[in-house]
């Protein structure tokens, strides 16, 4: 393959990788990106013989006109990033068709690099991480090949006796395979080195983000069912989506799917949607180990199980914290310094025990959740107003529903037994379906009395209403149930399709007890264990690593690591280890301030200068030299001295047109005895100055030669 063809192929590939990073962000529709990607793939392969000036002018005009067009679009819609990026992509696609000289290729690569930068802003997903690797490989090879092209273009022009046209240069490049084989190996090594060094820089560069132009980090996952009001049936759409929403990792205790992660409870039903009666919250208190207690009167006693939860950013006005049943405490990650700054990380709970956390929107959350399976859900007793909230029924509730509830409960008065009967009733008489239709005027009545098909929301809503009709306080709870175990990441992944609703029934003295009326056949997460599922698990585990260690890499992790370096006995903190305290940080800062920085800087400067001079001394180079003339070697100095002697003693001066050897022969005509040593000295001089001729003699020999010449000249 000729050099030109290979260069164009690699340039195409690099351009396609660059645009793919942008395309996979989801910001641009596929019908825009696909033609542009095709153009980038095909463009550099097309070789057009051109009329230089005409095409160049046409390209410039196109760039200006299209620039004005995109500027108009950008400012009229105030979507500057979108249209700027689209302009850059269109320019690079057009430029791809007009790659002639090395400068054209370099402009193409600059546009591609700008696309990569834009991709970093708009595409935080794993696709960026995957595509950046071949992009770096391709870009490195492209730049190396451009270097070769630059050499080739220069050489062709250099060696031509007359003016060379652009066509001649291009046809010469197409006819040759210029790339030495080992240069390709060098490229691979160089790409790997570039990647490794950039990773090192990435982890070491201090994160001192000032956030003036902060851009949202990741697009949030839309999750109906976790807002402040939930319309009955709104979760239907989510139940078909397999996007991962959270990953739960056991820290203390085991965790096998299906797992139940409780989100929020809703107590007011108006016949169409569920909401909370009261939205007032209060902050959770912490214990001595900075763990946030759901119920301050119930401290953690060490028997609790702990899970680490990584929650994807979910759209909504608040961050609901999900936890296994009966959560008793929460804790931010041990190396998260935000824990020490209350304004950055605060846990709140409401009267129903739901826990939320403040923080910027669209940010993933990582936290530890403590739970005790046998511990009762608080509160153990209900006040009258709360009891009323949990007995609320919608206006115009069908009497048939009440009768149905009474029929099923019979004479039983125990709330747990009544709830169990209702659960058995739902399991046996109803069918789980994601796609059933219900009467919009009263969907719940339609579900309970006629249709008897629906998904978890209907089951849970129906049971809550029926319990309340029987005078038993109950509430609807939304969360997740199910999950797949990912053995590669050692966590359970919960997806949107695992979203679930169930019921909590209040039992005096026990608190709220969980009941799930949905037939168990619905439980998802039982994915087939085939090759594709394993691939999917690997991808998800890599995705989690990508988010935690790249996208969300933070100053906190860096500081903890550096503090660990300062005290070798400490290690990077994990779960259960004492957190970094404010006192430790202040102590470290105070120690840093104790160092006399000005003195240290002066010492450093003196050290550098001293090192430089000592190095020159050790190398035997003179310290004092004429800077304008550079180093003077002994041979040159002695030759000049000899010329001075000849001029002074015999009036013999080398004419400008005379070479050194011609001059030596002329001296020989005047003083034959001095010719031989003078020739020897001249050859030594030529060897030093011009890099040719005999080897440079030692200083001792040269001195002897000069002395001999001097004697011969003076004696004559």
């Amino acid at each position: 393959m000729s050099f030109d063809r290979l260069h164009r192929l690699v340039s195409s590939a690099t351009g396609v990788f660059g645009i793919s990073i942008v395309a996979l962000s989801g910001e641009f529709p596929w019908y825009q990106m696909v033609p542009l990607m095709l153009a980038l793939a095909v463009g550099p392969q097309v070789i057009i013989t051109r009329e230089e000036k005409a095409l160049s002018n046409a390209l410039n005009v196109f760039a200006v006109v299209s620039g004005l067009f995109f500027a108009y679009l950008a400012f009229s819609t105030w979507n500057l990033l979108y249209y700027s990026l689209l302009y850059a992509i269109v320019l690079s696609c057009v430029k791809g068709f007009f790659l002639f000289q090395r400068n054209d290729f370099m402009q193409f690569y600059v546009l591609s690099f700008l696309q990569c930068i834009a991709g970093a802003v708009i595409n935080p997903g794993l696709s960026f991480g995957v595509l950046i690797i071949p992009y770096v490989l391709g870009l490195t090879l492209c730049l190396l090949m451009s270097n070769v092209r630059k050499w080739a273009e220069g050489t062709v022009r250099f060696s031509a006796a007359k003016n060379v046209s652009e066509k001649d240069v291009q046809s010469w490049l197409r006819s040759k395979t210029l790339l030495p084989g080992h240069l390709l190996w060098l490229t691979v090594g160089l790409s790997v080195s570039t990647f490794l060094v950039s990773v090192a820089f990435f982890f070491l560069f201090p994160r001192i983000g000032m956030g003036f132009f902060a851009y949202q980090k990741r697009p949030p996952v839309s999750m109906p069912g976790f807002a402040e009001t939930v319309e009955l049936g709104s979760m239907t759409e989510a139940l078909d989506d397999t996007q991962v929403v959270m990953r739960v990792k056991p820290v203390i205790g085991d965790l096998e799917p299906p797992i139940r992660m409780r989100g929020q409870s809703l107590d007011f039903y108006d016949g169409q949607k569920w909401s909370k009666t009261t939205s007032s919250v209060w902050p959770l208190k912490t214990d001595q180990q900075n763990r946030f207690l759901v119920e301050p009167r119930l401290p953690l006693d060490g028997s609790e199980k702990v899970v680490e939860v990584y929650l994807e950013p979910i759209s909504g006005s608040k961050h609901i914290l999900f936890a296994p049943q009966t959560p008793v405490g929460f804790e931010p990650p041990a190396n998260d310094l935000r824990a020490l700054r209350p304004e950055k990380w605060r846990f709140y709970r409401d009267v129903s025990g739901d826990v939320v956390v403040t923080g910027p929107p669209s940010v993933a959350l990582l936290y530890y959740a403590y739970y005790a399976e046998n511990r009762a859900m608080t509160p153990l007793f209900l006040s009258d107003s709360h009891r009323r909230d949990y007995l609320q029924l919608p206006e115009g509730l069908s009497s048939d529903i009440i009768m149905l509830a009474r029929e099923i409960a019979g004479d039983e008065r125990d709330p747990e037994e009544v709830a169990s009967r209702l659960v058995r009733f739902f399991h046996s008489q109803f069918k789980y379906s994601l796609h059933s239709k219900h009467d919009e005027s009263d969907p719940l009545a339609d579900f309970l009395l006629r249709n008897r098909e629906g998904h978890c929301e209907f089951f849970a809503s129906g049971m809550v209403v029926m319990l309340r009709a029987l005078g038993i306080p109950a509430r609807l709870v939304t969360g997740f149930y199910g999950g797949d175990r990912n053995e590669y990441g050692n966590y359970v992944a919960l997806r949107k399709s695992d979203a679930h609703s169930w019921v909590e029934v209040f039992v005096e003295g026990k608190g709220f007890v969980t009941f799930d009326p949905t037939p168990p056949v619905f439980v998802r997460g039982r994915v087939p264990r085939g090759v594709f599922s394993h691939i999917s698990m690997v991808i998800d585990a890599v995705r989690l690593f990508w988010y935690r260690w790249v996208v969300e890499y933070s100053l906190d992790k860096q500081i903890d690591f550096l503090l660990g370096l300062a005290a070798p006995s400490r290690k990077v903190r994990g779960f259960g280890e004492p957190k970094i305290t404010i006192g430790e940080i202040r102590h470290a800062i105070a120690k840093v301030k104790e160092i006399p920085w000005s003195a240290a800087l002066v010492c450093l400067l003196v050290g550098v200068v001293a090192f430089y001079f000592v190095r020159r001394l050790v190398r035997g180079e003179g310290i004092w030299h004429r800077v304008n003339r550079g180093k003077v070697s002994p041979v040159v100095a002695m030759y000049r001295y000899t010329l001075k002697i000849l001029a002074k003693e015999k009036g013999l001066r080398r004419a400008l047109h005379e070479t050194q050897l011609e001059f030596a022969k002329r001296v020989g005509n005047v003083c034959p005895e001095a010719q031989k040593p003078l020739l020897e000295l001249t050859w030594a001089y030529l060897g030093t100055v011009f890099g040719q001729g005999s080897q440079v003699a030692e200083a001792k020999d040269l001195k002897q030669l000069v002395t001999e010449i001097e004697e011969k000249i003076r004696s004559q």
Partner: protein
Amino acid sequence: MQSLRKFFWRSSFFPRKISFSREGKVFVLISLGLGFAAINTGNNLVYLVFSLSLAMIVLSGLLSEWNLRKLRPHFSPLVRAEATKPCFVEIGVENDRKRLPAFSVQVRLLFEEDEVDVLPMRALEVRPCEKANGSCILKFPRRGVFNIYGVAVTTDFPFSFFEKSVVFPTEAEVLVHPRIKDEAHLPSLYLANGEEGGTVGKSGHGTEIFGVREFRDGDNPRHKSYKRILPGGRELVKEFEQEAKKAVFVMVFDIYDEKLLNKDDLEKALENAASFCVSLLRQGFHVGLKTVSGRVEVREGRGESQMWQILDSLSILDFLRVPSNQVEAVFEDKSHLAQYEGLAFLVHPRFGVLRV
């Protein structure tokens, strides 16, 4: 700025000289912008791309340094050149490394005078323990003495972001002659018929046969005449006629006053004079040269050595500023040319070659 640049290139304090290419400047600007954006947004992926650009810059520096190690230049000494015409200098570089090649190497001569146009010698690859030879093209814009102060070995490997150079100090001078115009017919414009030369009717070393005589010891045996032999077998040798000495004297203006004559006029006249002399010498004339001011005089002679002598003198000739009346006087008075035998020409800045 130029003097600062020269200082940097000659200074041993900075052993490596770095200059940014256009792509390098763009890349560094983009990197700075990336760093600013990364710090301001706190976006880790922008940090990643910034790290990538930093890594490329760092590796570029390391690899270019490695590429330049143990490279040694050499070049053939250049003594003379001609103004405005490309001059080729044999130049090369040797790789003293045992295993690793060097890539994208350029070697160029460094002149104190900035106006010299230097096209460096390029080598894509210099294998270990091998030499790469080539030519460096020099173009001098004017006549005079040009000083070489070093040889620079440059590389832009691997990414062409920067050009890193090592300067090997050296000292040499190049004498640049005035531009010689290719007008071989020039003398015939000014010489009448018969003035190109002839013979003088006596034995000499010309090309026309004068006669034959008896062969004596010391005669050139190639000139023996085999058509006739003297009685007794004595051999004859041809004699050649002595040619008339074709002597031409050229006078050149070296004074100016800005009003009547300026330096540009004199430079053009000097070029004409040099071309004229060279044409005459190539046609076998004896040529002598003198300046109007009398400061420079070259006795008449012939052959290549005379040509170099004349051209060397014209190369370093400097012009003298004088009052206008002196210039006028020279225009009027040509008596100083009358003393010369043979043909005499004055190369006038305004009127061209004038026969005196």
